């Protein structure tokens, strides 16, 4: 369990303020944020490397705020591995065991066990200098796990490896977490990590957590234009909400949202300047006008098409630029070309006001 209560840290030009976060025992949480939002500083504060301005850190029920790093029982993995260059792979992994009272055979057994978990037994006698990036990252994770830490802290563990290795390591991290059940806090700038790895995600912006929740939830219902853009939730438009009907008992009303030359109908709770989020897969494209059951029926022009695996992204001009995601098959049936006219159907309830 990791519990951060109102953590504030300042380290050089980076600062994080009033961070509160609860990662349950055995949970996998990710803090995501753009470069320079203070993510590494936050992790180093949990590990005890940087002094806190305010707040408490609890690990597995114990308040460790006043303990030095060596007494906290955290495993730490940096983005650039930071393996000890003067030691072999075996001695790197065994580093945290050297002080333990265990006998040498017990230490050797643990090194072999952790190396087995990460499939790096064949590297044990190698020098650090002759390892690939993916191998170095496995060694760094093994080194952190060997002394059986209470929690695992991962600083962008996948950012420095090539895309193929990243996908593989990500899968292995998840499998490793499920097998070992160690409470994990990872920082990343890649929302894919959060969707594929985490039970919990917190979005960091300028040193503060702006939204936290289950990854799918944050992806589906971003609470601000910043989060929507950052998690890649789709079309984010700035504009203005105006009343277009009576307010019902629950405080909601029919409204019009105008952004440039684009106007859509939606259900709103407040008016005035706002952002809306429209997910690409909620834009229904057709050659003929959509059925009148759909609130919003817009005419648009295709600007360009982008094929991403089984999905085609259609970049549209509908008064404002919009991106729709349709299957390759639908794209072919509609015969879409740059310049083709096309109808867009959009449910009023598919428009998220943030």
């Amino acid at each position: 369990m990791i519990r951060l209560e109102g953590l504030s840290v300042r380290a050089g030009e980076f600062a994080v303020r009033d961070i509160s976060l609860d990662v349950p025992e055995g949970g996998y949480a990710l803090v995501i944020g753009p470069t320079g939002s203070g993510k590494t500083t936050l992790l180093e504060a949990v590990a005890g490397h940087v002094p806190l301005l305010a707040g408490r850190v609890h690990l597995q029920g114990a308040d460790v705020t006043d303990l030095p790093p060596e007494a906290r029982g955290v495993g730490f993995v940096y983005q650039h591995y930071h393996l000890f260059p003067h030691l072999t792979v075996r001695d790197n992994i065994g580093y945290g065991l050297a002080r333990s009272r265990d006998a040498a055979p017990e230490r050797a057994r643990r090194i072999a066990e952790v190396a087995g978990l990460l499939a790096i037994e064949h590297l044990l006698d190698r020098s650090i200098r002759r390892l690939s990036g993916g191998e170095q990252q496995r060694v760094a994770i093994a080194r952190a796990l060997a002394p059986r830490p209470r929690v695992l802290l991962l600083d962008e563990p996948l950012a420095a490896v090539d895309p193929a290795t990243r996908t593989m390591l990500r899968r292995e991290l998840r499998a490793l977490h499920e097998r070992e059940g160690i409470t994990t806090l990872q920082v990343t700038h890649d929302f894919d990590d959060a969707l594929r790895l985490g039970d919990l995600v917190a979005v960091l912006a300028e040193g503060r957590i702006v939204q936290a929740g289950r990854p799918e939830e944050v992806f589906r219902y971003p609470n601000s234009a910043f989060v929507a853009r950052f998690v890649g939730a789709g079309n984010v438009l700035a504009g203005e909400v105006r009343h277009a009907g009576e307010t019902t008992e629950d405080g909601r009303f029919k409204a019009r949202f105008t952004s440039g030359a684009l106007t859509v109908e939606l259900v709103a709770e407040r008016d005035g300047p706002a952002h809306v989020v429209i997910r690409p897969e909620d834009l229904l494209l057709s050659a003929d006008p959509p059925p009148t059951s759909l609130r919003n029926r817009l005419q648009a022009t295709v600007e360009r098409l982008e094929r991403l695996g089984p999905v085609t992204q259609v970049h549209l001009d509908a008064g404002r630029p919009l991106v729709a995601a349709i299957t390759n098959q639908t794209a072919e049936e509609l015969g879409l070309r740059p310049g083709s006219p096309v109808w867009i159907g959009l449910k009023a309830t598919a428009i998220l006001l943030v």
Partner: protein
Amino acid sequence: MPPQRLPHPASRVALALLGAVLVLFIVGPLLRLLLQATPASLAAALADGELRGSIVLTVLCATAATLLALALGMPLGYLLARSRFPGRRLVQGLLDLPVVVPHPVAGIALLLFLGRNSPVGGALGRLGLEFVSHVPGIVVAMLFVSAPLLASAAREAFGAVDPRLERVARTLGDSPWGAFRRVTLPLAGRGILAGAILAWARSVSEFGSIVILTYNPKVASVLIFDRFTAYGLPAAVPAAVLLLLVALVVFALVRLIEPRERT
């Protein structure tokens, strides 16, 4: 990077010629001196009790100065590499100062500072520590000119060790001292050792400040000067040859220990 070809053969010849002049200028005199080292003259030099004693004194004082420089220079080097404190740049600049102070000037300054009539020298004298015309004076003069070299080398060596390596060691259970001993020191050790050997060699070759602070007992460089002024060139040569051989051995050691550029 592949070596670049110079555009004009003529400019290559010109560069080679100018380079050769400098190389010959360095090698020539030393070679000339080494050629004096016939077995007979070396035997005579080694049989000279005063000369033997002065070389032993030089080596012992240089070793003491280097150990002191290590004890004081490593902590300062670590501090300069790791922490940001007010006046850090000033301290760093002060470390370079002895390089520009002419050594006899350093000797005068040390004499004023440590002489029996100064507060510091007087106080230490009452404790039984005499500098002027005593062995501690030699060590202090050597320390003054060599310690900055070692502190700078230590600063660079520590600075090249990523502090995050120490942080990783801490999360793996090391105390600050443990992380220093198991990670930082092994990684910086080579650079510090090279700095120590350089400081030692600088101490052995020191003359200007020692001659002012402690003329007697004579270190090798002072003895060579003394023989030369009192008896002329032939008397100074055997001592010079012997000191040169000691210096060359140290030079070879430094080249062996210095981190290689390639690999």
